């Protein structure tokens, strides 16, 4: 194209070093940029391929993949959307769908936590830790101050969880901004500190263990005033609480923040080209810190939704075995770091989780124990495929064949062809 590019290349290659224009970006930044280029086609294809591959595995175990997937689908409750489902099937579906949406709620929020970082060129692996500290804060505030009126109590608990998550992720952001510590490493380490810190807090003899059940490693229960109101289904049977709307609201905030504020402009500039950002007078370091703090707030709120919505207490087992934060990475990747994408990807993973749960799957169709492994497998395949489709995008977009595959691409992209 231009001799500039060529010169750049020339200089790099002889030095054998990767200091070119593109290489100035971090890996997550490049990943993020590539992922913004595809359309909705790619993630849908990705998901389909993962399901088909999963189907073959089901076949290998001697089961019928179609009836298995149908059973999983029924387990998600999504057939509630079909008007012809009536009677008791409908009320079962309604209950299942409530569970699916309960699982979707935190996934949206942790997905946003990972996606926001991606947009700034950061890889936030710390969703789990941020979720954990958010949960600790939510359960502590929720189980204390039981004399508070409901609304302020809920707001306080959510704000506390958001702040705790923000502070936790902010540590990684500050380390990155001041010392250049790689956020991948620091967030992973912070995950373990959060998890084992939580286990200590609520473990037997721990400072926040429920004083009324001295033999159970759990927190005190959340007071009634801090519980999120249930708007669909029976509150005593884990109906759907307003957390879903808070999560959807967070997705709107995510979009507005990125696309309609000055700060969002800075974040996107830093994510796509930190050199150009600092040339424009943006403090890249400060942006990193702020972005991480916002990510942590999203993840913290995710935990608050779970704690105040249906868990109502925090067992040390939960802390150790929760994987919500990690699934958030898959959600962000599949959702291509966009607000809408994250919502749908979270719904997919939430539905899978509910649909394959042994509570809802008919054992005569498929062994529920195998089923939850199937979830893991499909999740794994999606992550794998999402990562490879970044490579595929890169390879294909350099050739002309891709134009056919990605007809849905924005016309501005066509102009570049």
């Amino acid at each position, binding site marked *: *194209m*231009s*001799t500039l590019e060529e010169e750049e290349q020339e200089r790099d290659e*002889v030095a054998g070093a990767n200091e070119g224009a593109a290489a100035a970006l971090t890996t997550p930044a490049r990943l993020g940029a590539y992922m913004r280029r595809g359309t909705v086609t790619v993630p849908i294809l990705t998901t389909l391929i993962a399901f088909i591959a999963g189907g073959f595995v089901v076949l290998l175990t001697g089961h019928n993949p179609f009836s298995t997937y149908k059973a999983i689908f029924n387990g998600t409750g999504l057939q509630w959307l079909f008007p012809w489902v009536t009677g008791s099937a409908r009320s079962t579906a309604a209950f299942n769908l409530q569970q699916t949406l309960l699982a979707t709620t935190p996934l949206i929020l942790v997905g946003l936590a990972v996606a926001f970082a991606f947009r700034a060129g950061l890889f936030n692996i710390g969703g789990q830790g941020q979720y954990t500290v958010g949960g600790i804060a939510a359960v502590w505030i929720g189980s204390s101050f039981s004399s508070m009126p409901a609304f302020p109590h809920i707001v306080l608990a959510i704000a506390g969880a958001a702040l705790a998550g923000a502070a936790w992720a902010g540590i990684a952001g500050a380390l990155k901004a001041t010392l250049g510590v790689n956020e991948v490493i620091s967030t992973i380490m912070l995950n373990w500190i959060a998890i084992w810190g939580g286990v200590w807090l609520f473990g037997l003899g721990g400072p926040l263990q429920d004083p009324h059940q001295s033999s159970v490693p759990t927190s005190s229960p959340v007071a009634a005033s801090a519980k999120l109101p249930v708007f669909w289904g029976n509150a005593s049977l884990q109906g759907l609480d307003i957390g879903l709307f808070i999560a959807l609201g967070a997705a709107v905030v995510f979009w507005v923040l990125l696309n309609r*504020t000055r700060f969002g402009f800075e974040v996107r500039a830093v994510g796509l080209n930190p*050199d*150009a950002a600092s*040339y424009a007078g943006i403090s890249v370091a400060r942006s990193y810190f702020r972005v991480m703090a916002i990510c942590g707030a999203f993840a913290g709120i995710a935990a608050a939704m779970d704690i105040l919505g249906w868990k109502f207490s925090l067992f040390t087992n939960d802390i150790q075995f929760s994987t919500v934060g990690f699934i958030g990475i898959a959600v962000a990747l599949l959702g291509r770091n966009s607000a809408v994408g994250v919502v749908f990807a979270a719904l997919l993973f939430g539905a899978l989780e509910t649909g394959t749960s042994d509570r809802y799957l008919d054992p005569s169709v498929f062994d529920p124990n195998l089923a939850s492994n199937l979830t893991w497998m499909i999740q794994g395949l999606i992550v794998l495929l999402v990562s490879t489709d970044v490579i595929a995008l890169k390879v294909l977009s350099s050739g002309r064949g891709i134009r056919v595959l990605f007809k849905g691409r924005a016309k*501005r992209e066509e102009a*570049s062809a």
Partner: protein
Amino acid sequence: MADSARPALELRGITKKFGSVVANDRVDFDVYPGEVHALLGENGAGKSTLMSVLYGLYRPTDGEIMVDGQQVEIDSPARAIALGIGMVHQHFMLVPVMTVAENLVLGNEPTQAGGVLDLDAARTRVNELSARYGLAVDPDATIEDVTVGTQQRVEILRALYRGARILVTAQEVEDLMAVLGRLKEDGTGIVFISHKLGEVLLVADRITVLRRGKKIDTVRRAGATEQSLARLVVGRDVLLSVEKTPGHPDRASEPMLDVEDLHVRDDRDLEAVNGASLSVMGGEIVAIAGVDGNGQQELVEAITGLRTPTEGRITVAGEDVTGKGVNAATDAGVAHIPEDRQRRGLVLPFTLAENLALREYRRPYFSKGGWWRVRHIRERAFKLLGEYDVRGGDCDTFASALSGGNQQKVAIAREISCDPKLLVAHQPTRGLDVGAIEFVHRRLIEERDKGRGILLVSLEYDEVRALADRILVIYEGAIVGEFAPDASEEELGIAMTGGQKAPEATPA
């Protein structure tokens, strides 16, 4: 020795194209055993491409390579090494936490039975080599603890350890000087890559000059002078004829830019700008001419707030902006057309509207109370794209979709539209075609005539002469001379290569 019958290495008619760009155009080059053959040319002349072809990093589009008279295919650096071609990298390719001995044998480690690394053997080899070539290094020192000079020695030793009979190096000449005699005695052919005339004249037996991908000439050192080489390197076949009237510097007011005794360090913490002083009046174009790497980058970065100087003072229209950052510089009236529009000047995956907002996005027209004013931003972009005749896209086009010339127009539109007092244009026509170059040149002169101060930093000799009202020559981080725009090539060439200190700059 230099006249051995057969060249150790011969490149014949090497052509390398990147898409439509021809980086090397039928280049011939050869080295005899025991000879130093310099490859001289400006940045982007195609030296590095040629050496990458030789080292197996690129496959040539056309042409052949002969080693010891045999035609060879070099498809990887491993193959090049096997053929006895050693590359001493300009940027160090050493593992900082390993010792000298470990680095030396890396990739070709002596092993004991069972594949265990034999470090004693490695150490012995280091000592042998350093004794043989008189390059003192401690085999057990860790690379990150030794000086840059030692690292350079290790790079050379590593190539020799691998049995290089042809050594390609772009290193500082002092390091090469130490081993040169011994290498020549051994019959090693040396390719010395440089853009510094003095160094080349110091060590080379023959000199080949590349310009814009083509071999211009091969000359013997005997009879060559800095002037004659400078002429070959800079060339004069492209004549840019922008109509220019003399500037009318506004000497009554304060200078738009005043730099006093500026010291700036580069990324490696070495002094890159070393006591530079200069000033730019409103209504004049002051050009900084010099060979690349003499502190231009750091000077520009200091003036535009991207780099904090260690000493000195920068004043923009009377306002002290020294070390206050980009935003303070922008507020004082500095605009900056950066050297590398793709790395710095634009966010390629951003739309043109977003790119056009990059300089002034904090101002209330673009964002108010933290909110982004999308409509304003688009309206402004629409106006600028028309005014600057940017083709190939509208407000919502990604910058990456535009041609280089149109990308540069976007960057220039943005920088000029913020109504700067001082416009710093760093290599503003780099990589542009002739039409786009003209546009940029005309625009710079127009802006000068509006009373702005323009600081042009350029490596293009023609550009400097075509635009400047005054030419300041920078050499090793200091301004070593001031010339009128009609100064001869020889005068400038000599000053640019530090050949002769011109009289001190007269105060503006």
